[in-house]
């Protein structure tokens, strides 16, 4: 387990590094003065000069990359053009909103998807199984922002059941949760389909294995067999899929924040693109990518830990 964990973590770090290199390298591709393009019309000439020197834009690419890494490691992601504050601060302020949105999305998709997949596996071939299958495919297909806008239209504007704007009052958890419901549903619904499918497929595979037959031969109840014996195994690939799904949920979260006018990293980036606040865009992209890699890493490690066969191989 330890060896696996180290190897996997090292790989994650490497991938993140390469991703960042790719990101920086694209600056080289832009024609014209990068500083002017990247900082946009809001930057003053002195800012551009500082930017040029900071980023070492006149230096060879390799040096630029090295300098960038040096700065990232110390937490310096540049300066927000608009507010003149460190980018890290700006992004960090918005992070909790997005994280809560994604977390809630995960809760939704797991709470609906896992039981759905379980049920479909147990009642394989039944009408409900086919229906669940169709539903799963459908929610995977439809983009989350369409779901977001339609739910806004129907439940907020139309029926008035839910608020249309914002994240709720600070300090009032109930209000915040209330504001979270519709957006997190939009974020998590697509993943319900994926989870239901993988749970169903894993369960079907596990339920066909010999040890389940043996458990039945010993007269264990179906409930015990399903939840204690089979689901415990089927959860493992599900966790991995969930980890990968977070990347998709991050994208959905951006849309959800815009549609429901919630604060968050997504809205921040969007606004920053419009105002050509490149350092914020760049910094936020770096952070969310690193976050996503960390999530998949965590999911893989949890999955490995859940399987005793991997866990005990030190």
């Amino acid at each position, binding site marked *: 387990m330890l060896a696996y964990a180290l190897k996997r973590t090292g790989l994650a770090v490497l991938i993140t590094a390469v991703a960042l290199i790719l990101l920086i390298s694209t600056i080289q591709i832009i024609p014209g003065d990068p500083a002017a393009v990247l900082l946009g019309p809001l930057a003053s000439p002195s800012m551009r000069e500082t930017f040029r020197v900071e980023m070492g834009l006149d230096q060879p690419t390799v040096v630029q990359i090295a300098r960038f890494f040096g700065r990232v490691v110390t937490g310096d992601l540049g300066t927000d053009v608009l507010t003149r504050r460190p980018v890290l601060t700006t992004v960090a302020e918005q992070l909790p909103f997005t994280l809560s949105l994604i977390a809630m999305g995960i809760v939704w998709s797991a709470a609906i998807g896992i039981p759905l997949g379980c049920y479909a596996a147990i009642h394989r071939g039944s009408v409900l199984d086919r229906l669940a299958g169709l539903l799963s495919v459908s929610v995977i297909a439809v983009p989350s922002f369409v779901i977001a*806008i339609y739910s806004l239209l129907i439940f907020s504007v139309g029926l008035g059941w839910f608020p249309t704007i914002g994240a709720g009052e600070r300090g009032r958890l109930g209000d915040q949760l209330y504001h979270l419901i519709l957006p997190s549903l939009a974020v998590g619904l697509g993943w319900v389909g994926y989870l239901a499918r993988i749970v169903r497929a894993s369960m079907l595979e596990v339920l066909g294995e010999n040890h389940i037959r043996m458990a039945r031969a010993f007269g264990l109840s179906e409930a015990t067999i399903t939840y204690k014996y089979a689901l415990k195994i089927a959860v493992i690939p599900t966790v991995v899929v969930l980890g990968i799904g977070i990347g998709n949920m991050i994208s959905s979260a951006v849309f959800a924040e815009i549609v429901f006018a919630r604060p968050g990293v997504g809205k921040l980036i969007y606004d920053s693109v419009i105002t050509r606040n490149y350092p914020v865009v760049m910094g936020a992209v770096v952070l969310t990518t690193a976050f996503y890699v960390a999530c998949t890493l965590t999911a893989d490690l949890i999955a490995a830990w859940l399987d005793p066969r991997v866990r005990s191989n030190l």
Partner: protein
Amino acid sequence: MSDRISDIAPAAQQRRSALIDGFWRVVRQPMGSLGLALVLVVIFGALFADVLSAYNPIKLAVRERFLPAGFEHLLGTDQLGRDLFSRVLHGARIALWVALVATSIGLAGGLVLGMAAGYGPRWLDSLLILFLDALRSFPTVMLALALVTLVGASLGAVVLVVVLATLPSYARVVRAQTMSLKDAEFVLSARSVGAPVSRILIKHILPNIIGPLLILVSMDIPVVITIEAGMSFLGLGVRPPTPSWGSILNDGFAFIRESPWPAIAGGLPIIVATLGFTFLGETLRDEFDPKLRREP
């Protein structure tokens, strides 16, 4: 693996009957025929957009803004009085154009990189895998936002984002297939008679990859449509007044309190297209290659 010898004489005939047989297999499944029907609706709408709708999609008629759906305007009008049905039909053209172009480029790139990784030396494979994994670690919207910041909003930017987002999955499948075929007997025999690498790749490996790859493509089209619509929604794609489903949806969102119709009009074709292509793709995969149960 197909028996290559049977492909000699009546190859064209075999292909045609395989196609017809394939068609019936898809249509036999309810999800397949539903998907096919929806896809045909979209294609039909795109092809005959000018004929099907009497209105000019970009012509302003401000006095007729926010009309609800009715006989005159099948989906109503938007904030500038433009007929939504016509805009939706023209938006289909953009969606399908992007799907075609971006998928072709992504496919080509995926083939090249995948075959290089699968057939080439280990260090090249490791390097390419690292590159592809790094590409995959960007959430798609982040990729879109970052790239548009650099190159500006345009349809070209959309194509670029789509290519970058879908290329890794193509490359992976190509790589896996290439690797499994690398040591197949017919490849080894070709190598032993000194056939050059390019010939081996094109003549021997490529035909065996095409099948699963096409299925993957059909399953990816909804993703492409989603990316295009999403980017246009965020204003990162087509520039107004060109109608893209995403920009119609954006108008709908902006004026959601004035009239629900722009939002409905924008979302509806996206749902139809994504459901249609997904149903079709899923059926294709279930019928022809269940092993391709792809990770999301």
